[in-house]
């Protein structure tokens, strides 16, 4: 409880039940009615919200488990740097938000309301209100009922027992807050505003001004520090807005504690404006210099309105930094004697600046850091003093906590490890994200102290490393200018579609070293394949050369040998040639049938001669059939020729002409009728056998041969007395045999064939499908001998034929013997094979 009230006008301490100030006579009734101190230095914070604040916001501030002062002050504290952090972090933390949303605790939900407050643009006018409050020291009259509920009750209700435990938990949470804060700073740095660069090193320390802690400790303890108040607030928060937690804050573990700690700091600053209490003046004396906040206030008052934004930034960095807020709950009553026992490292670290920018780096910065402080003198010294004091205060708080833990074992602290929300337990601080942040925070501590007079310094490593996008992305993205989205839901955001730049840029594909393991089996297969594709050309050419020499000799000698022998035999007398003693049975049969068919009729018979032979067989066919046709001519028979082979027509004329030379008495023009070519092959044969008059009209197109003698008596195929087929083609002979046996099986069918066609016709002869066959020169010679015809020509040819056959047999045997010996004496059988 508050025992005394400080007059907001003259800062004189009055009794708790005093209705007016004893010093200046200021009316304190409104403070007395609520039995709570309401310092004027907080009024400006409320004024900024009074006009616009609604009841819902009041409820939110209550549900946030924050003191009302902080609720209001949060809107004031939500400065541009925090807004920029939020806006820039939204896109980068989308993945972390998804995880943190499920794990977020009640404390984080309080920031949803804070965000709503930030969205109110009027909150940014807090400095204007601040000036008004400073000018009108009696501005507290403007506070309404809500302000009375939001004053320093929380300071009164705070108990010493819960303070120790809460301090312990707040330290841990503050570290997390620092991590997040540094990350946000890094994002701001990316944008070019780079408030982190402007942040002096003393802000990174765990220093706190002892004045603030002492003043808060002495005056009021907020209600929200009580466990009961905390529970109620959390329940309200859950009931009212369970899902209003902003995404950008879902992951960051600010909780309400840093915010709570900000408010006393602001209160302290306001107290300076309204009227600095005694305890603050004592601290100032210990520091040995003027209060830096006063200097800041002076700067603010002296600076033009155009610098108001930068001043506000500076103010935020000084008072709302996490280091300052971190020590806020660690309110300690310990005397400042222990401040001198703080480590030298902390003291030196607080004195020196965090970093000094090079001129080149400073020129590249889009916003000049610490604009207001650049214009002041010795600002860094003042800030270092404050930070040293804060460091001592922190040390004192720790000792105090230890003492309180020892003295109050039965206390029920509002914040314990068990009370830490589940979402904080799930946070993995060992991840790379937090590792980088820890390094950033630890690096300034490990660095050597910087001399005081050193104006310029290199950019700290932690600040360089604070740019995660540039570190992670490849080099080509560093040069690319981030594009500001102009349309769509992402309009106004910069660099949110980072993949677009990646897709537009082309990089060299990575190279991989791949080693191919080839087995022996695969090598063998490869060798075989190569041999197939690329055979040895040299060896083949040599073989071809050798082969060509031997073959050229053989190609010349052997045909020449054969030709010479035959040529000589033509002009040789064969009168002494020994004739065959036995005639072939086929020839004898043919002779008997032919003479029998021709002699069965008293009148001359009608003989159909079918020529199925090529011109190449003319010599042989002429020799064989010459005697037969001479016999026909002698008996003056009617001869009709037809051919299914175009050459047959001409050969028929030639063969009959040759036979007619020996029998000139035969009237060939009258007795012989040439029906010409019979088209259609087997169809023509079938049709001709079925009706010979329709198909063939003869060679003379001017007259119809079927109307003249002797064909006028022929109406069907069976009207022919004898049918003789002269062929050198067994296939064509087969067609005639098949069709005739099917259609006119009773007809007499004789064959005169060459030697090559005879074997395939022998089965038909054996099966009596044909009556007789006269084949080869031997058959012709036999027929001539049987019919007593002229045999001089055929005997001469037969002798030459025998000689040629003997030569062929000799060549075959000679070739076999030569190859036998060549293989025996050859060292390379393959080469001989090729030969």
């Amino acid at each position, binding site marked *: 409880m508050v025992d005394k009230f400080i007059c907001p006008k003259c800062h004189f301490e009055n009794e708790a039940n005093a209705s007016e100030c004893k010093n200046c006579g200021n009316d304190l009734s409104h403070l007395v009615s609520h039995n709570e101190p309401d310092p004027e230095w907080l009024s400006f914070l409320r004024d900024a919200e009074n006009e616009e604040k609604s009841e819902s916001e009041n409820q939110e501030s209550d549900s946030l488990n924050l003191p009302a002062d902080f609720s209001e002050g949060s809107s004031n504290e939500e400065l541009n740097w925090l807004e920029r952090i939020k806006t820039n972090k939204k896109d980068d933390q989308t993945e972390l938000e998804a995880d943190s949303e499920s794990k977020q605790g009640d404390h984080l939900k309080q920031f949803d309301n804070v965000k709503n407050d930030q969205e109110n643009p009027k909150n940014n006018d807090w400095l204007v209100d601040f000036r008004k409050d400073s000018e009108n020291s009696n501005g507290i009259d403007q506070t309404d009922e809500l302000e009375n509920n939001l004053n320093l009750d929380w300071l009164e209700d705070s108990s010493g027992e819960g303070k120790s435990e809460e301090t312990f938990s707040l330290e841990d949470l503050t570290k997390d807050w620092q991590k997040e804060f540094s990350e946000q700073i890094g994002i701001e740095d990316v944008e070019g505003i780079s408030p982190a660069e402007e942040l002096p090193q003393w802000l990174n320390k765990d220093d706190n001004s002892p004045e603030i802690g002492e003043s808060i400790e002495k005056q009021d303890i907020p209600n929200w520090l009580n466990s009961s108040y905390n529970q109620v607030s959390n329940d309200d928060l859950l009931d009212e807005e369970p899902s209003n937690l902003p995404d950008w804050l879902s992951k960051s573990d600010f909780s309400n504690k840093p915010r709570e700690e900000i408010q006393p700091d602001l209160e302290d600053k306001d107290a300076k404006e309204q009227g600095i209490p005694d305890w603050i003046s004592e601290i100032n004396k210990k520091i040995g210099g003027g209060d830096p906040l006063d200097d800041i206030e002076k700067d603010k008052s002296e600076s033009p309105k155009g610098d108001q934004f930068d001043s506000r930034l500076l103010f935020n960095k000084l008072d709302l930094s996490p280091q300052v807020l971190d020590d806020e709950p660690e309110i300690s009553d310990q005397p400042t004697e222990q401040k001198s026992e703080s480590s030298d490292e902390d003291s030196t670290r607080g004195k020196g600046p965090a970093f000094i920018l090079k001129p080149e780096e400073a020129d590249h910065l889009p916003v000049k850091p610490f604009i207001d402080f650049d214009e002041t003198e010795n600002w860094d010294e003042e800030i270092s003093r404050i930070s040293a004091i804060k460091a001592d205060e922190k040390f004192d708080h720790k000792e105090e906590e230890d003492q309180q833990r020892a003295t109050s074992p039965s206390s029920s602290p509002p914040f314990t490890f068990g009370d830490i929300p589940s979402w904080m337990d799930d946070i993995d601080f060992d991840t790379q994200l937090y590792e980088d942040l820890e390094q950033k925070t630890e690096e300034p501590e490990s660095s050597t102290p910087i001399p005081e007079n050193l104006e310029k310094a290199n950019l700290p490593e932690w600040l360089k490393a604070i740019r995660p996008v540039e570190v992670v992305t490849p080099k080509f993205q560093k040069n690319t200018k981030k594009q500001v989205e102009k349309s769509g839901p992402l309009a106004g955001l910069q660099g949110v579609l980072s993949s677009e730049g990646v897709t537009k840029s082309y990089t060299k594909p990575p190279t991989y070293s791949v080693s191919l393991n080839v087995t022996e089996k695969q090598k063998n297969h490869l060798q075989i394949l190569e041999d197939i594709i690329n055979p040895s050309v040299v060896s083949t050419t040599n073989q071809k050369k050798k082969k060509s020499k031997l073959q050229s000799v053989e190609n010349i000698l052997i*045909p020449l040998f054969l030709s010479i022998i035959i040529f000589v035999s033509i002009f040789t007398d064969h009168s002494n040639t020994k004739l065959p003693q036995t005639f*072939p049975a086929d020839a004898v049969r043919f002779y008997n049938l032919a003479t029998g068919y021709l002699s069965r009729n008293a009148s001359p018979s009608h003989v159909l001669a079918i020529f199925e032979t090529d011109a190449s067989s003319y010599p042989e066919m002429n020799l064989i059939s010459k005697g037969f046709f001479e016999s026909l001519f002698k008996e003056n028979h009617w001869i009709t020729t037809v051919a299914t082979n175009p050459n047959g027509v001409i050969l028929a004329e030639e063969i009959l002409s040759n036979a007619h030379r020996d029998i000139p008495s035969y009237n060939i023009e009258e007795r012989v009728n040439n029906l010409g070519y019979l088209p259609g092959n087997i169809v*023509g044969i079938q049709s001709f056998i079925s009706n010979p008059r329709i*198909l063939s009209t003869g060679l003379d197109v001017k007259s119809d041969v079927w109307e003249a003698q002797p064909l006028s008596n022929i109406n069907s195929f069976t009207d022919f007395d004898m049918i003789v087929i002269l062929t050198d083609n067994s296939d064509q002979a087969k067609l005639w045999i098949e069709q005739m046996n*099917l259609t006119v099986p009773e007809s007499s069918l004789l064959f005169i064939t060459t030697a090559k066609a005879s*074997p395939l016709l022998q089965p038909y002869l054996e099966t009596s499908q044909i009556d007789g066959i006269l084949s080869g020169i031997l058959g012709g010679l036999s027929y001539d001998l049987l019919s007593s015809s002229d045999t001089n020509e055929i005997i001469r040819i037969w002798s030459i034929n025998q000689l*040629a056959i003997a030569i062929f047999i000799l060549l075959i045997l000679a070739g076999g013997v030569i190859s036998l010996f060549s293989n025996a004496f050859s060292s390379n059988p393959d080469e001989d094979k090729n030969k």
Partner: protein
Amino acid sequence: MKKIILAIISSLSGLIIILGIFLQNTIIGQIKNYMLEWAIIVGSIAMVIAIFNLLSVHWNKVFTDGKRDYASPFFIAGFVTVLLVGLALSPTNEFFLNISKYTMISVETSLMGVLALTLSLASFRFFRKKQNLLAIVFGISTVIFLLLFSGILSTGIESPFIQSIFNSLHALPIAGSTGILLGIALGAIVTSIRVLLGFFKPYDRK
């Protein structure tokens, strides 16, 4: 659908021809004769088309780059000459017959002479190419049947034992050719059945 129609036509044609062969004096026999005449006419026209196709091929070989053939001009000259002489003098003219006769007989018999020389060379190299059992049997049989069909062995040999051997050897070609003919006959029957049933479509070149 087109293939089905063609298959039906071919099958019906085959059946009519077969029935016409066995029933020649009936109307089916008459239909068979008409159908055969149509086929002959179509075959004659096809032969004319083939002749002109042959002429165009050689014409292209003469007047197209990259396909030059020195035999083509001779073919074209001979074709035009014989055609003009035949149309002018009729096919029964002696001059026309002599031109055709001596040209074809001389050329084709010359080819047979070249074949004889080539066979002599092949007979000399026969055992060089092949030294296996089949080649030996083939070579020996060739020699035996050359002697047998040349009539050399038929002169002066009156021994009944040798005559019986010769007769046995003469029966060997008949046995072989009988087997070949049986195979050809079976193949022809199967092909005919397939054509009749529509499984084999020689008219469908796709």
